[in-house]
């Protein structure tokens, strides 16, 4: 029953939104489409709120049950409470408005940037190890393209052949764009198929 209901709702709403595109002269469909999309945006916000609650619940339970790595869960919960308290405090006392911005600017941004920087190091190490574990032409090709792209990006007044910037630009405009388009086209087709599957009920992303 739930499946049928959700399927019916999904199909109906999908058709309404789709018809809003194909029949732009019908104001009713336009309005319905806009309203449905607005609902979707609201529901997405609610879903995020629910997700936050779920996250807290999971980690709180993990901490209470003293499961493995419960210390991280405790840090998460405490961090959330501190951040949330700061936000509430800033809302109550406008003069403390910069408290949240301070935490964001000097805590969240550096932490995430650091993680991104570590990713660069890890990718570098992985590239080096790839030669050890896999020595076929793809490995060598990967290494060659990586070097070209990196060196071609470097703007050093040193005597670096111009071939690297040229190769880099060529790679970006021809093979990379070609491959990216292929990927995008594939994504578009996948999106269409996904829509059809949802319309036909083959997929139930809303179920269970």
């Amino acid at each position, binding site marked *: 029953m739930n499946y049928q209901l959700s399927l019916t709702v999904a199909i109906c709403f999908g058709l309404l939104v789709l018809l809003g595109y194909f029949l732009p002269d019908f104001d009713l469909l336009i309005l319905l489409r806009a309203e449905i999309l*607005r609902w979707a945006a609201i529901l997405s916000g609610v879903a995020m709120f629910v997700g936050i609650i779920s996250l807290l619940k999971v980690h709180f339970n993990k901490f209470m049950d003293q499961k493995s790595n419960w210390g991280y869960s405790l840090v998460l919960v405490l961090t959330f409470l501190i951040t949330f308290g700061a936000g509430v405090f800033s809302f109550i006392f406008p003069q403390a408005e910069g408290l949240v911005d301070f935490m964001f600017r000097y805590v969240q941004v550096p932490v995430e940037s650091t993680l*991104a920087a570590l990713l660069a190091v890890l990718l570098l190490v992985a590239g080096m190890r790839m030669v050890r574990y896999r020595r076929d032409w793809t490995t060598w090709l990967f290494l060659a393209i990586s070097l070209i792209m990196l060196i071609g990006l470097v703007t050093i007044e040193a005597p670096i052949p111009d071939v690297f910037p040229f190769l880099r630009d060529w790679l970006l405009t021809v093979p990379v764009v070609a491959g990216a388009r292929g990927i995008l086209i594939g994504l578009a087709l996948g999106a269409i198929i996904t829509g059809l599957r949802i319309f036909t009920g083959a997929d139930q992303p809303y179920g269970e």
Partner: protein
Amino acid sequence: MDKPPTSPFSLFGSTEEPDDMNPNASRDDLERWLDMLREQAGDDWKPNQPAASPAPAAPPGPSNDLPDWLADIAPRTEETNADFLQSFAREIESGEDSQSPISMTSPFISSTDATPAVSLPPIDPAPADTSRRDRPVPGWLQNSSSPDASSPIAAISNKDDSTTLSSLLDDAPGIVMGRGSGDTTGGLDWLQGGPKIDSAPLGTAPTSVPPTEALTPSIIEPTGPIRPITQPIVPETPAIEPVEESLLDWLMEEDDPNGLPALPEQTTAVIQPADTTPEDNSLIRQANVSDDEFLAQSDWLFAPEDSNDAPVVQAPVPEVSTIAPEPIKPDFSLPAIEPVDSDEFTVPDWMDSAPFEPIARIPDPEPASPATTGAIAVGLPPLGSVPEPIEQPDWLPQADNTPAFDTPAPAPAAEGEELPDWLQPPAGLDTPQLPSLGETPSWLPDGAVEEAQPAPMVDEEPSWLKATNELPELVSDSEPDWLKSTGELQPAPAPTGMDSEELPDWLQGVDTPTPVAESIPAPVAQNDLPDWLQGAAEAAAVPEQAALDEDISGWLADTGAQSIEIGEMDSTPDWLEDASRPVDLAPPAEAQPAPVAAVPSGVQDTQSQAPDWLSQISDTGQFEWEDLEGTNEGDAAPVVAQNPLPPLPIEGDAPAVEDTSAVPAPWETQATAMDNQDWVIELPGWLQPEEQKTQAVEAVSLPKVSEEQLQAQAKLEDALDAIPPGEPAQVDTKFDDTIFSALQDEEPDAGDINLKDLPEWLKPAEKQSEEEELDMPPWLRPTSADDIEWLNTLAPGTVPPLRTPAFTPSTQDDVDFIISAEAADPEWLEATGPSNVSSVATQPAVSPVATPGDLPDWLASVRPEGLNYGSTATPQAERTTTTATELFPVAEPVAVPTIPAAPERAFTPQATPSAKKNQGQSLEEADFPEIPPWLESIQPADQVDAPSEERPSPFDKGSAADFLDEISGALPVAPIITEQAATGTLAADAEVQELVVTDAQAKQAAIFEELFAPVAKPQTEPLPQVQTQTKRGLQLDRLIVAALVLIPLAVTFFAQPAWLGQPPIESRPAVKDFYDTVNTIPPGSEALVVFDYEPGSSADVDPAMEAVIAHLAQKGLRVALVAARPAAVPIAENTLQRARSSLDADFPYNYGQDWVHLGYLPGGALGAQALASAPQTTMPIEIKGGLSPWDQMLRNVRTFNQFELVIVGASTAERTRAWVEQVQVYSVPIGAVVPAGAEPLVLPYYESETPQLIGVISGVSGASVYDSLSNRSSGLLRTWSVYSFGILLAALLLFIGSIVWLISDTFAKQKSNQPDFAQIQKGLQTE
């Protein structure tokens, strides 16, 4: 007939004020007192004594035996009723209503008079003392002192002068009988002098018209049989006319000159129904009427003086029952809570027990009274039940309406029922919703007081009464058992299906659960009864009464006697005459159990007459037929009393039987004449509830089962116990059917059970299926009772263990044995015939009884070869052994469950699979005599006369087609089966045209199928770990790499080497185009800047976003910021602030005017679509001030395409693509700012011939280029230098590291075996 009419009302009386309770009072005192009263009453004791008859000689005054207060009352008894009536009539006709003695005519008073004599055990025999005289009148008495408007008193008082009241009274001697004289003043004298009789409450009792809907139907509807008694006396009386018109003066006055406290107005207000008209209000005593005046006017209050004439008073009760031609519909819906001012009024004890007192308060000091009330309430229908009044005696309305004063709830009864007068309880019974303990009607304490008696009184309780005190739950301890029983009677539905008109009064009264039962006086042991009552009981003794045991209470005997009298006077109902035909009662009883439940106690004596469902009561522990078998009707009550009445077990009928059982009525006398056996087996056992079936059979019918049958039953039970689990239901069914069949043989002896009288659904199924059986072949017909004779042969030890149901033939020998045994003993099969066992008849696997000759050939082929259908039946008596089949002649598969595993050699070679399948059911040995018509229609035509050997089974190859050919509409299965058998595949080529599918179509179909095929979940098998490096080595590797990257970058950042240059602009055409497009936007236009990235990407995106925003600010564009991610909200503002700070300090760029922050836009792509479709509704306000920017800064933007530029800063290509896909349809220039890693996937939107993006700025390099284009001096150049150097280091490390690993690994492999490639790959993935 000479018996004193121990009206039940007399038993309601003894309601004593708690304060009046004298714990030392004994019944002996009461009896002495009553004896004296009886002596004084003389002939007036006669119930039906005419009103004109001279009153008995006045008692010799207060004797020494009488209490003082009674001594005061005694003089009143000197007045004759005739005098009183005459004077009263004159007064009425003369308009002297104020002196109306009408109240004296109230039969309530008469009832009350008898009350203390009968049922007031705790009357304080102590002489009147001053303290008691000064005892205040309880509030309930104040309220109830006046009759209700609908009561005869009020009715008569309100009657027009033209009304022939005198004639009415003359015609209704019963009303006047026992009344005091009409001299109201005299009444006042003694009343005033007798402090115990406080007339104020009586006189001031308001009279109101009780709500009709609240009136108990049983009260307002006297039963039919009473009419012959009462109608001739008073066929009609207008006195009962509704009380709307006028009110007696005494009822109108209010002041209390004697200083008696006026009744609280609440009384009047309470008793006045909501729908009471102003005229009705006139019935209520006016507030300005003093109590003394009221007392003077209400001479009927003198009735207490006639309490000595209890017998005289009670006689007219039934006679007056029909005085009221029109039903009064008093309103009891308003619960009246009368405040009791116990300090100012004094009431005699016996007054407390006056049945006419509707008192809402029970002077019961113990909290048990509420329980009593609650118990009563259980038996009372809910408030608001609108009875259909038929005829009501004048006294009845009075009784009914009386509780309206205080009683919150009426005593509802079954609608449409007529209650005999004597069974009419005072309305005070209707106290289901009494709010408090003290509001219990006065008559209730009659029993409650007894219950509330101190320890001495408890000792005097009869044993049966003690037993009833143990009633659980619903019945309180303080409640008399008879009242408890009535309480439980209430749930009982309507009485028997018979017309209530046909029932005698007393029976209907009993049927009427609440009022009748409650009206029944509390069971007092006969020894405890006063002498006069015992004498009365003896005078009216009937044979049944004489047989009563001493434990039988006198009231019970009186009731029975009176009922008998009524029954004798009235024509005996047909159903009573046909008592020997209880079957007639059975159907309605089955349909409506309540009727039987309403059967009086006498029915219990006729236990055998009870239907089966009644016998089930014994199963509940509430009633045991066995206990009554050896008892007379007189023994019934004790027996029942010994069995505490539990809550209603099944339906409301069971408790009803119990309750009525406690009331031995004359019904018993007639009931004993009934043939009990007729009722016993009225219903077959299979109709009884499953859980009680066996018990019911035992309790009712087992005595009729022969000893052999019992033995057989025992054997069956033993055998069935051995049945493997999983098959019990069938066995049980058969067992029950067997037992029932055995019992069927006894039914004719049980009596004339006229099954035709049963409803169709109640008739045994065998009766209903007789016609069906006729159409059945013999082997399909159910087993008859004769077929079950084998049960008789089941003597102990005759059943071999092997033949028990538990026997499971595991070997061929076992199977052969069973088959041979069954084949050798087919007589039981032949004996089968039409059976009465419906359940067996409905069994599809009925034991086949057929002869070989009747079996068609095609069915005979199924028969095992070794089977020999014996044509001669062996007598049952000659049988010495029984087979498993015999044990279960119905051929339940459960009998031999595992026989299907028998080898084939036990059967003929022609045995088909179906036959083999059936062989395990012990059915194949049976002949199939003839094919029913419906089977013949599908029989192959060519197989009809063919020899059995030539007839293949319908399931054999080649025959199925022919077999099905005979069936119209059947699919031709022959080709299919044939080809399938031949080739093993389904060859329908000849029948079905094959679809021509080309290869292309097949491929397309395959693709289409794949598209819509379920997506297979990726395998998530854990990959084996490949130990390629030690832990130490891994750490060293990573540390080296990190150090090689970080150290140069740090140096570069601080050193700022000169050899690090800027990226060339020409190398970034996407950035150039971006910049150029922005420059084309006119100043003052609106631009939407979307921040759709997290802080982790801010280092790569923020520089470009900052440069772009700065450029927009320089261009004078109005920027609206939108954060597509929660964390992007502060990023957006920070970025704008940095861009603004990068400009000149005096550059005007203010929030709300030049830029605005719209906040977070959830939904991802959907949010983008929503914003594009309806920006104003999607982002209605800005986040800082909560204002609507669409009216100020963005006032020019009504649609999304009115934004001159949309800049999307996303951390991934997917998010950028989403925005492009959702927004580009609105023809808005979109510029993308992405990290360097997302650039390859974003560029296609820019590199196309019709670019969907105006430009792409990727990473720090793109930002630096944009800064260069915009001539913006920022720190991006420095950042880019370090960034560029770090990229170089990375390239070098990658190259060097690859070489090193290559070399080292090469050498390592030379030393050892090269690891598997797959493992290497998995290890890489793990890394």
